[in-house]
């Protein structure tokens, strides 16, 4: 149901990146089409978002060339770029199978340039993975 809600930006396995676009182009689509910035400014904003998450070096990678963590960060950057009131990370274990994901997400959320509250939807049986 949350997928239909305009106030929610989702990071989920079933909302993948455009496979033939680079990480930065995937993120730049949002300012380009929603806020009608030109290509150069949209790319600058997308790069800034990746830098803020500490992943500026993946800007030129396409989806098939990314590790699961890099792919997740790009999807997260795209969701952050949407600037919606809520950000939901839906079943992160399905996307972040190469890192201890609760710590990884906490580390991204703690970066100084990143603000807002993220909600994580995960299976009950993974609750033990999260710090209480």
């Amino acid at each position, binding site marked *: 149901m949350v997928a239909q809600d305009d106030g929610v930006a989702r990071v989920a396995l079933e*909302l993948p990146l*455009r496979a033939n676009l680079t990480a930065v182009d995937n993120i730049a689509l949002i300012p380009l089409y*929603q806020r*009608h910035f030109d*290509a150069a400014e949209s790319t600058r904003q997308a790069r800034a978002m990746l830098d803020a998450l500490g992943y500026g070096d993946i800007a030129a990678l396409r989806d098939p060339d990314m590790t699961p963590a890099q792919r997740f960060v790009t999807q997260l950057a795209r969701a952050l770029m949407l600037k919606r009131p809520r950000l939901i990370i839906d079943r992160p274990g399905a996307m972040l199978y190469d890192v201890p994901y609760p710590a990884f997400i906490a580390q991204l959320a703690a970066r100084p340039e990143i603000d807002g509250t993220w909600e994580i939807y995960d299976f009950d049986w993974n609750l033990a993975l999260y710090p209480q």
Partner: protein
Amino acid sequence: MNFLAASIESLGARFVGWFGVGYGLFAFAGRAALLLLDRSTWNRATYDVVIKQVYFTAVQILHVFLGYALVISWLLITIILSTAREFGLTEFATEMTIRVLVLELLPFLTALFIALRSGSAINTEVALMRVNNELDALAHCKVPPMQFEFLPRLIGGVISVVVLAALAGLLALLLAYLSIYGLTMAGFDAFTQTVAKIFDFRIVAGLVIKCALFGLAVTLIPVVSGLETPKKLFMVPVSVLRGMMRVFFAIVAIEVLSLALKYI
């Protein structure tokens, strides 16, 4: 009796299927046409993607295409000229060359070339986008797939086929002149008079419309076919197969219709 009922049922199902496909194509074309008229479509982003599409569909293959047009034109001009000389009809060779090559064969081959190179790629890409939920992701991000993915491909296809057919036609005219008159200006007046006689407004408009329809067919049909793909990876080859068969039938239908309108 059962056989008759089954045959009628099967025929009816096919008819409904064809009607569904036709309706889907025209409905999509109608939506695209409405968006073309919408001012908000013509933003910088769409314009950039159109330029990219024209580059990938036409500019990137220009040297290969012109080489291919050169060889085909040279072969056919040689055949037409030698046959015309054999039957003592040399004075009709120029007109015959232009009518066969420039008006019919080269636009048809251009459409086939673009269909095989870009149409199949578009069909596969759209089918994969649908199967992998990439279109859903774009919708979630409120990036309109019609403006971002589909419309630029349609416009790029139309521009590419029209421009490539025009370039191939010009190349064929040049080759025809050189083959008939050689490297002299002696036949220039006669040649340009024949060209002017054939290319009246009706013929030029018909040629441009035909090429535009070819361009639309080689992009619109693969896009719609890709969008119809069920969300199963193994259905992607089936979608491309169906899409390319429809493209072939559409190209032949446009050519037949154009010939019928011109000569019957």
